[in-house]
């Protein structure tokens, strides 16, 4: 295991390319404005599409009259759910899939949140399209608003869906048993080990708390955008900003009831996704408008539409009961986790249930998770889906438990850390983890013991454990160029520097420099099926595919060398970028020399490979924050911030640090600033980037990083994922820091200045 702080340039030092910091190949386009994002393409004859959205959070659609809009000069097409074949052909299936997505793209019989799409217009300018929206008359029967989990779970609550019944499951991933009870609770997952009641009897200290978090948004800076061109009787091409081109292809084909082979998805650069752009909203609508108008259709959401009409992450309410012996051994933990799914089932509750205390060995656990629908936008994935909310609860409780026991908070964590072979609540034994090692690095870091240096200051620490699987499938193709460089083709959307991280693995395998590899992300016609960019899997999964393709390149080029040397292919070795004849070691070709001889030895070398093994595995991140709280105003200043991550082996350390720092930023926003404010009617009142307050450069200090490399045996170079883990621990670490600064625990996020003042008042009243 190696440990690298951000002042160093190389990490483990085991590799020639991995662990160094080359300039990313797509960088120049992005610093000069040449890179093209979702909204940056305009085809000849393009029309502009806009969406009419529901002003009500819950209503039945009696009728939609589009005739006046259609009559407006400049309007070329209007669409409603009647134009989506899947909605006409099939009943809504609340279990998920394209029929449900279609309902979220254009509502059919009911609108279920303010901002739910109901109709779309294509016109010669975006302004005319907007004017036309005002001319569409929708007759709504307004229904009572079910504002959140509390209202949704009340006896006699208004039901969002007539046919939703509660499913009960005792195993992660199981479909569950249908209880037959009509409810706003779509699923109840219960995982248990041991006997919690017995465990609490064995405890010397028991803590019980309720923690709440609010609806938050991923906050990507680029709004959703796409352009669709459906050639009459021909193919449909969509240029879009998405985390997964093949997912969009399958979804669009199913919604429009056409073969997948008739759809081509061209990825544009993506201006942030964080999980939120795994799901498309605009593509099927743009396609229908293109079909109806005979023109390419460009659709770009406004920021308000992004907040109101796309999937945020769940608001939650989590109760915790946790007990430990005097020596710190946690004897039992019991959680009740309620996750708001928004309009349709599908919150990240399972992620919360399975991760909350999975970094610890706790023999007696009972966790109940609930997925609850309410009149808010249907939630979408957000970086380590469900994990930050449950970690906020678990890591806050464990921190407070340490105070009760009079223990150092890291000592309590280390006392209970899970080791290889220990079973988490999922029942699966931990594989090669490195949890203890990461915690030890955190505890030994100078930040952990540095003096706080003033009053009203506190230090908070927490860990974030991310369970990953990966393995949804990645393809890669390498073409050897005569000058000894290679091109690398994948279908993996580059959210944050994965092109260079994958290219570096190819360079390592082929003995080239990173600059010798030209990576590109291509459309669905041009590369093998590849799952979306999510789950911290791209550098790992697509990296493995690219390494496999590299091996094929080595094999084929070795055969060419054998032909030139008149030996058998097995008589050629490839070492440190050089092909060597084992029969006569004076016969050698560098990769570049041999690349120049390909056309005269049998033609080009082009090699493709795929990988779907998965195994990116779980890994641990952690944060330490020092804060100062102004007792007059409740303002929190972050004085010092250190983030830790076990990355296995860093491909490009600067972009690993970037993930750690960016995750920390989002976690801080979640902890201190961000939330949707709703009126009693379910209308979001802060749907701008002024009022939905994301951290600015003024709000943060430098974010120090500590990269820990505890190699992953399931990757040839030991890589783990980096993308998601760093958003988890900042929530509890910040709550713990503020709690220690003011001497009162903060149980609700965001921790606003007002809530801090209230907590200080309560604290003083108790004195």
């Amino acid at each position: 295991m190696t440990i690298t702080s951000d002042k160093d340039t190389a990490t483990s030092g085991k590799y020639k390319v991995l662990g160094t910091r080359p300039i990313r190949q797509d960088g120049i386009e992005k610093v000069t404005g040449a890179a093209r994002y979702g909204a940056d393409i305009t085809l000849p004859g393009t029309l502009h599409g806009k969406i009419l959205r529901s002003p009500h959070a819950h209503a039945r659609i009696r009728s939609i009259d589009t005739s006046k809009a259609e009559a407006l000069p400049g309007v070329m097409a209007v669409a409603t759910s009647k134009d989506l074949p899947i909605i006409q052909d099939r009943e809504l299936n609340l279990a998920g899939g394209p029929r449900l997505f279609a309902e979220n793209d254009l509502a059919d019989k009911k609108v279920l949140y303010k901002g739910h799409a109901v109709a779309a217009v294509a016109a010669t300018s975006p302004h005319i399209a907007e004017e036309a929206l005002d001319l569409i008359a929708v007759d709504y029967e307004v229904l009572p608003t079910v504002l959140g989990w509390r209202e949704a779970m009340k006896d006699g609550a208004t039901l969002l869906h007539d046919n939703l019944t509660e499913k009960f499951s005792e195993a992660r991933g199981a479909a569950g048993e249908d209880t037959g009870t009509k409810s706003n609770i779509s699923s109840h997952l219960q995982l248990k080990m041991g006997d919690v009641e017995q465990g609490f009897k064995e405890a010397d200290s028991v803590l019980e708390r309720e923690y709440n978090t609010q609806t938050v948004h991923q906050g990507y800076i680029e709004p959703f955008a796409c352009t669709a061109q459906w050639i009459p009787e021909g193919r449909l091409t969509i240029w879009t900003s998405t985390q997964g081109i093949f997912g969009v292809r399958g979804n669009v084909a199913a919604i429009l009831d056409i073969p997948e082979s008739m759809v081509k998805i061209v990825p544009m650069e993506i201006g942030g996704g964080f999980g939120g752009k795994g799901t498309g909203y605009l593509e099927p609508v743009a396609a229908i408008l293109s079909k109806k108008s005979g023109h390419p259709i460009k659709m770009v959401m406004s920021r308000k539409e992004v907040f109101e009409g796309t999937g945020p992450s769940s608001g939650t309410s989590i109760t915790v009961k946790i007990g430990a012996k005097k020596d710190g051994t946690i004897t039992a933990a019991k959680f009740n986790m309620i996750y708001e799914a928004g309009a349709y089932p599908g919150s990240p509750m399972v992620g919360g249930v399975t991760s909350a205390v999975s970094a610890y060995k706790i023999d007696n656990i009972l966790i109940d998770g609930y997925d609850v629908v309410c009149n808010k936008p249907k939630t979408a994935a957000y970086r380590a889906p469900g994990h930050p909310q449950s970690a906020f609860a678990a890591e806050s409780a464990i921190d407070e438990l340490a105070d009760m026991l009079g223990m150092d908070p890291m000592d309590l964590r280390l006392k209970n850390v899970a080791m290889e072979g220990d079973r988490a609540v999922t029942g699966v034994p931990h594989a090669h983890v490195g949890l203890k090692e990461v915690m030890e690095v955190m505890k030994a870091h100078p930040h952990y013991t540095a003096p706080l240096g003033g009053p009203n200051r506190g230090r908070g620490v927490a860990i974030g454990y991310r369970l990953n699987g990966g393995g949804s499938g990645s393809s890669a193709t390498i073409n050897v160029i005569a000058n000894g460089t290679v091109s690398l083709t994948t279908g993996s959307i580059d959210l944050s520097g994965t092109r260079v991280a994958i290219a570096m693995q190819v360079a390592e395998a082929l003995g080239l420099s990173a600059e010798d590899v030209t990576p590109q992300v291509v459309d669905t016609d041009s590369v093998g099926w590849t799952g979306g960019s999510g789950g911290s899997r791209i550098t790992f999964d697509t990296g493995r595919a690219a390494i496999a393709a590299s091996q094929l390149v080595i094999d084929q080029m070795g055969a060419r060398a054998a032909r030139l040397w008149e030996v058998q292919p097995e008589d050629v070795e490839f070492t440190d970028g050089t092909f060597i004849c084992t029969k006569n070691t004076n016969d050698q070709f560098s990769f570049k020399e041999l690349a120049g001889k390909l056309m005269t030895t049998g033609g080009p070398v082009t090699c493709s490979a795929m990988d779907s093994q998965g195994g990116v595995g779980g890994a641990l991140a952690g944060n330490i924050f020092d804060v100062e709280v102004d007792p007059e105003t409740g303002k929190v200043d972050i004085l010092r911030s250190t983030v830790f991550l076990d990355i296995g082996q860093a491909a490009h350390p600067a972009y690993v640090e970037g993930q750690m720092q960016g995750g920390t930023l989002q976690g801080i926003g979640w902890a201190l600033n961000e939330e949707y404010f709703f009126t009693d009617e379910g209308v979001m009142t802060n749907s701008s980037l002024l009022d939905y307050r994301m951290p600015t450069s003024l709000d943060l200090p430098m974010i120090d990083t500590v990269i820990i490399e505890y190699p992953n045996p399931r990757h040839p170079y030991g890589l783990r994922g980096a993308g998601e883990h760093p958003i988890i621990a900042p929530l509890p670490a910040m709550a713990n820091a503020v709690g220690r600064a003011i001497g009162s625990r903060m149980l609700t996020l965001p921790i606003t200045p007002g809530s801090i003042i209230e907590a200080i008042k309560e604290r003083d009243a108790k004195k």
Partner: protein
Amino acid sequence: MADKIHVNTTINDTEVDFLCESRQSLLEVLRDVLGMTGTKEGCNDGNCGACTVYFDGRIVDSCCVLGVEAQGSTILTIEGVASPDGLHPLQQAFLEEAALQCGICTPGFIVAAKSLLEREPDADEARIRHWLAGNLCRCTGYDKIIRAVLKAGEVMNQGGDARKATTAAGAGATDQRDVYND
């Protein structure tokens, strides 16, 4: 359909004229009329800074300026930051310091940081954080952006491209600073 208005302006040292509707923003004109898509839209209400451009020497959110206001003005966009001789020190520093991840906010940050460094190449971390607080980045946590701007300031102090940079939009005089601080 709305009547269009003829506007003469200078963009990236080139005289440009265009037709636009009175309701179109400068951002729309740049992107949709002139096809200059390097300037990005993140919010269209002046809160994210992705559409930052120079407008007569000041930095503005181009979504909050009307296209017709560009009459007679001098504008610099991200497309005009590099020169035929190479990248601006800020662009080079952003690459070297890995100061971008998704890159959608990058044009706005580079234009905004350029306007600071032309006036104050010695700007320290606190000053840079203050100046860039109107530009949102969701990927980086700002750490590497701040480091890149500090590095570019050093390069410009050592004679880098600072001189060339100040002439590009016709402004750069220190007497403009009060305008920025209000």
